[in-house]
């Protein structure tokens, strides 16, 4: 179908989406047959993906709690996906009741779902946006309306950049996003990496390539520069389960996530 350049992106439920796959791996049912078909193939190749997803989601909760406790009152979550459990505004508002949160996602279904979920809640919004066009996000009227870029902001880029390929210029994207934040802001970032991946990389990659957002394969060393001159808080950029863990061993989960996702939180000097 030839869609004119100025037309907004359409919705194709026949095409798997990374957001709905993530939901499926977290045990959710916010997904369609096309998503589940790919998810099951992924599981056949890499059975511990659900554990990795859970570990990433658990880290998000720990990171947001830590940020809220550090006094951050505004959160910009890019690539928020299908809101399922333990959403940023829920976690943050346990600590900062009037925390402001803007969810941004490329997937219009994810955005619509978020909108329904947060309906009627002051200070929370969901907008459609593409991280590959950071200026559009930063100048989005809703983003500007809720987030005061003169006050510290927590920018959340959770398990997102593995869906931004090198040719889309992730370094430049991250630089633009970091530059928009005032001193004292934070970047919480996690990223799927291939360093210790024990499964069939190419298979996983080709399966994800069927989604609307093909994956990029990066190593842990390639993730570190996304923080720019932000100072990584303790313990630095580590396996997602090693970042300030609060639960005792689930060895399988730890082992799985150890080889799949790195995470870190950096503070803008």
């Amino acid at each position, binding site marked *: 179908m030839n869609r004119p350049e100025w037309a907004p992106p359409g919705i194709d439920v026949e095409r798997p989406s990374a957001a709905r796959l993530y939901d499926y791996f977290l045990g959710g*049912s*916010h997904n369609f047959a096309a998503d589940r078909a790919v998810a099951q193939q992924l599981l056949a190749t890499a059975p511990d993906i659900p554990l990795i997803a859970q570990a990433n989601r658990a880290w998000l909760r720990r990171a947001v709690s830590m940020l809220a406790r550090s006094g951050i009152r505004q959160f910009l979550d890019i690539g928020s996906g299908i809101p399922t459990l*333990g959403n940023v505004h829920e976690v943050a508002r346990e600590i900062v009741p009037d925390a402001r949160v803007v969810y941004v996602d490329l997937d219009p279904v994810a955005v*619509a779902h978020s909108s329904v979920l947060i309906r009627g809640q002051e200070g929370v919004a969901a907008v459609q946006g593409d991280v590959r066009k950071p200026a559009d996000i930063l100048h989005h009227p809703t983003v500007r309306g809720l987030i005061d870029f003169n006050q510290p902001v927590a920018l959340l880029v959770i398990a997102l950049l593995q869906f931004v390929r090198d040719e889309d210029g992730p370094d430049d994207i991250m630089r633009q996003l970091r530059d928009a934040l005032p001193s004292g802001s934070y970047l919480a970032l996690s990223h799927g990496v291939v360093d210790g991946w024990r499964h069939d990389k190419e298979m996983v990659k080709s399966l994800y390539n069927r989604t609307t957002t093909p994956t990029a394969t990066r190593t842990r060393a390639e993730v570190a520069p996304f923080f720019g001159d932000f100072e990584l808080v303790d313990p630095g950029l580590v396996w997602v389960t090693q970042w300030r863990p609060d639960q005792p061993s689930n060895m*399988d989960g730890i082992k799985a996530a150890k080889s799949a996702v790195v995470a870190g939180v950096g503070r803008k000097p």
Partner: protein
Amino acid sequence: MIVEPAPRGLIDGQHITRVARAWARAIAGASYVPMAHVDIELRLAGFTTRLLRVLTSQPFDPSPATQIGVELVEAHFASPETLGHTIGVLADRLPPLAGTSLDSSGRRVMRLLSALSVGYSRGLRERTLDEQESIRLATVLAQAQTEHALRESQEAFRHAAVHDQLTGLPNRIFFEKQLADLIGAGSRERIAICFVGITSLQAITDRFGHILGDRALAVTADRFRTLARSLGHPLARFAGDQFVMLIEDPPDTSYLAGVAEQIIATLATPVHTDRHLLPMSASVGVVERPVAGMDANDLMRAAAMTLQWAKADGTDRWRLFDQARSDREIARHALAADLALGIDRDEFFLEYQPLVRLEDRAVIGVEALVRWQHPRLGRLSPGRFIDLAEESGQIVRLGRRMLDKACRQAREWARLTDSPPYVSVNVAVQQLRDGGSLLRTVDNLLQEIGLASELLQLEITESASIPDDPQIRRTLDDIAGLGVRLALDDFGSGYSNLGYLQNLPVNQLKIDMQFVRDWKPSSTKSLLPSLVELAHNLRLSALAEGVETLEQADYLESIGCDHVQGYYFGRPQAPSEITSLLLEWSSEEDDL
């Protein structure tokens, strides 16, 4: 987090905590629970306490465990694996805490877990269905939003494409579509168009610039829009300073006249903008036609033509389309297009009219007069095409061709007779303006053909531009310097600045035929004697044009006029006839 106290006296908290910890460990990783681990254990301890209460109830009723199963799912301990691990842990850990015989407590625990499983499965099913519903709702919502956004962007795009930014009115594309649809639909019998031109706009723009011009145009458009709305007729900005109003099935012509007058009347009040009070004016061309067989292009062409007529009539005028006039103008346009081709194909030829000396009635010269043998229209007189040739600039090329022909003809006659006539050729102002090219053409021709320069006369029409244009003056002087005669044609009919006459290198005044035509034998007021005298005072010969009777000829002779031209002495005729005439004359002369 509410932790229900363990039933006192039965089980102590330590047992419960131990069960909860084992339970938490068993289900870890089976589903994502958005809680810190310590909270998970507390939550599971609460469930453990409630389950024990059900297990030890008297009489034993396992049904409350169903609700606990539902709540487990609601607390996000929700996956098939979680249920499996839960049953495994509880079947193992609960019987020793039941406080009854192990055998009967084993059975109780089984019934308890079966009730729990029912509730859990129910909860999981509900949750799945809810989530499927919510994602479908989100999809529908997103689709609606996307479609809405698409429509909005399409609408904005479409609107921008068919509307004029300055006035917000539909633009020409929109209007043409509207007109085409109307013609195509065939739901109307007649359509009329008021084609409006803001005649004052150019002057405003020239004087105050485009910004103010645009503002004046926008205000004008607003006034038109208000009128169009009140009349209920669509209005569009057609181009630049042109607007168009479409009237479907107009009641009659007087209604259209009323509309045109109202359009003009909207501009009666000057436009006030930026401290300037700008008087505005408009012209309106009105066309009305039946829809059947209508060609939109033709309609718009007619409208544009009618607007031009209205403009030509003066400011604040409107005109109704006139088919006969249009036909004439179209024919004229077609003829103009044929003209260049006609020159290429040598469709133009000359006829010659004798110029006669009154004294002895001798033919001393001939005037070459151009004719067009049009392939379709037949023979055309210069009145039909000279204007067109002048407008299109073809006059220069045509003039040169005719000059060539005339000179060759003059040379021929010079060979035939001892006293050959000079040939007088009309020259247009444009030819005189065309740098020194006329001078070169004449010079070359004379040399090439070997024609004595005094056998060529050029007739120039009395014109305002000649005396003031130094280049033309120089050209005339140079041509006269070659020995070529010059005559001032149609003298007395146009611009008369007598002062310049004495400085022009002219040999002859050709007195316009109207003076001869107006002369009556009884008349005492004729200007003819004065004109003849004027010529003589300037040492020029006087030639009267349009002499048709002997009476006129005699009178002219009596007042001293030197030469005449007219039907009485000979119509314009083919060169061969002139040749015969000349031969006749020369033989008569020989006879004398």
